[in-house]
């Protein structure tokens, strides 16, 4: 299987991989440590801006959560708590505060059970495979690296479990009982035909629940691991996170609050469009893309309003009078809860006083919603890419071509190396295997006087500045052409 592409979810998988490397080495409070670590990671960039849905209508105080027991800054006893509240993000940079959307993401996405996809036949879910990757880091003498996960009609081994496996087997048994039969119809069908899913070692085995969460996998993992976590585990994490994030990412790209449209819940205050399946969300996404493309077009006459752009896009996508995104007519869509959110709450204006704010003389800056997510995989069921020019252009050769013809990158060996390593090969900047630790990169940096060789923070700032400048230059050149 090819390694995942360096998307934001891959970055999250890499950060989680690094966190697990730290957390698994200390078995105390494993779940707490991983959860808190994830919250802190998600509260930082690039995840805050690139992954999480954030309703910027909320005021700053309610966007940041202060941990219990955190006065102000424990290292600064004189710090003013109110001033601290006003500096939420800066404090979060130091690590103590968490971003409220990060907490929602953890609950909505990372605590979710992964269900079986229709096209997997007798194969288990990616979460089961992740569990196999995790347990394979156990001691080799006990046979953990040879662990297998597969559907079998009966237990592959009838020998009583050895001591080292007992804890893992008990945990898995609890998970099976806890889930009971509350798993999806596809799992039910596969189980009836091919049998339950088993985790088997050479001399012992245990049944796995049909659907697992990330936390179930961690609970069953033998700790501490006998070796460093490998890249296969990181790629496995990435696949699991891609699946978990799919619906959240689609809702976000449509400008819809994922908390208001939970996957398996009642619609809450979301109105009557409770059934927002992934397939339907893809249609909403296509509608928003088409509308945004119309809005972005250079207007020859009067610029389109958002409502006009959505109306035009709706009619374009409504081929042969068939419903578009589940709505028979434009009026149905425009008066629905989803339509209202997508059309009218997409852009946020500036300088609006907070509603109900006591102080009429103060001003609030409000963000726009996240831009549409273009970085899409083909639909796993149909294999089709979404229409639209961006979706059709997934050729690495295009990226290579534009980079080769960008003077700011081509003529700067450090930048060229950095771009290829991070954007093409998906390497991380920090940590083991990161570009900052690469001797080849260090030699290039040392050989040029343009970048500071000893201060990594300054080096990264300079690289980011130069990269943005080079990209801006090339995009402008294209615009003028």
């Amino acid at each position: 299987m090819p390694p995942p592409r360096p998307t934001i979810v891959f970055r999250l998988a890499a950060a989680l991989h690094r966190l697990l490397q730290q957390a698994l080495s200390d078995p105390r409070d494993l779940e707490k440590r991983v959860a808190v670590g994830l919250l802190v990671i998600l509260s930082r960039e690039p995840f805050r801006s690139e992954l999480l849905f954030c309703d910027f209508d909320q005021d700053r105080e309610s966007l940041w959560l202060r941990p219990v027991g955190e006065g102000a800054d424990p290292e600064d006893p004189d710090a003013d708590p109110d001033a601290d509240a006003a500096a939420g993000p800066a404090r979060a940079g130091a690590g103590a505060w968490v971003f409220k959307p990060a907490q929602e993401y953890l609950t909505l996405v990372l605590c979710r059970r992964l269900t079986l996809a229709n096209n997997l036949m007798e194969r288990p879910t990616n979460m089961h495979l992740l569990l196999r990757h995790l347990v394979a880091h156990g001691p080799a003498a006990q046979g953990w690296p040879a662990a297998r996960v597969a559907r079998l009609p009966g237990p592959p081994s009838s020998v009583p479990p050895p001591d080292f496996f007992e804890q893992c087997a008990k945990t898995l048994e609890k998970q099976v009982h806890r889930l009971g039969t509350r798993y999806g119809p596809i799992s039910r069908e596969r189980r009836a035909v091919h049998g339950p899913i088993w985790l088997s070692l050479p001399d012992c085995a245990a049944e796995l629940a049909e659907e697992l969460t990330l936390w179930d996998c961690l609970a069953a993992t033998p700790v501490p691991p006998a070796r460093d976590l490998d890249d296969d585990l990181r790629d496995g994490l990435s696949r699991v996170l891609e699946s978990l994030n799919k619906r959240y990412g689609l809702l976000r790209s449509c400008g819809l609050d994922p908390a208001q449209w939970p996957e398996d819940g009642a619609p809450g205050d979301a109105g009557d469009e409770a059934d927002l399946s992934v397939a339907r969300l893809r249609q909403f996404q296509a509608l928003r893309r088409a509308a945004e493309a119309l809005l972005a077009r250079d207007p020859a006459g009067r610029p389109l309003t958002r409502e006009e752009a959505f109306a035009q896009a709706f009619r374009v996508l409504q081929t042969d009078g068939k419903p578009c995104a589940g709505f028979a007519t434009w009026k149905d869509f425009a008066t629905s809860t989803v339509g209202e959110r997508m059309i009218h709450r997409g852009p946020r204006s500036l300088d609006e006083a907070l509603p109900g704010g006591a102080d009429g003389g103060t001003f609030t800056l409000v963000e726009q919603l996240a831009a549409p997510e273009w970085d899409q995989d083909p639909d796993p069921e149909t294999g089709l890419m979404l229409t639209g020019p961006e979706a059709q252009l997934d050729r690495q050769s295009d990226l290579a071509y534009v980079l080769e013809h960008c003077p700011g990158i081509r003529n700067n060996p450090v930048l060229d190396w950095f771009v290829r390593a991070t954007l093409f090969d998906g390497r991380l900047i920090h940590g083991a295997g990161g570009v900052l630790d690469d001797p080849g990169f260090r030699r290039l940096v040392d050989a040029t006087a343009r970048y500071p060789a000893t201060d990594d923070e300054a080096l990264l700032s300079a690289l980011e500045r130069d990269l943005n400048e080079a990209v801006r230059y090339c995009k402008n050149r294209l615009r003028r052409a």
Partner: protein
Amino acid sequence: MTNPIPTQDEQRAAWDRIERRLAALDWEPPLTPALLDRLVAQLPARAADEPLADWLGRAFPPAAAPAGARIIPMQRRPRARPRLLGRALAWAAADAPLEVPALPTHLVLDPGGLRVDFREADGVVYLTLQALGFTLARLRGLEVALTGPDGVSQPLALVTLDARGAGHCAVPDSPETRRLLLRLQVWELSQP
């Protein structure tokens, strides 16, 4: 056989993709074990069988309701790639040893495509940004960011220019804000 030279639309899409990948890089240093240990140690104990989400809700409770509306500094826009449109060149008053620097009635930002008018009243500085000449056609309807001399890391306000290329905003009046305004920069935020 596909053409090895991408079209201009394909090149634009490729640059968009590169920008997205750049935005997703791990520019910030990773979480340190010491910080994680400190944070976990100060959080309340988790009861047996307490769901993780419930415990996290207790450990990170919502902040108390704010006393009133406050200034919310601009947060980083998702995938917004800012582009410098103009800046106020070294304005002597910004470095003057005055407690409260004086604001001019207006500033023309290089390269002469933007003008900013200032009006002060009731502890608030009202700004009117006007795109001039050839810039007008390109900038009308766009959203721009007003920042201090350090660029987008020093945000002051976001302004949407209307069909006449004009936009308005207001910022609280303080010596610090005035020093930033005297070295104002205007950035174009790319369209989502």
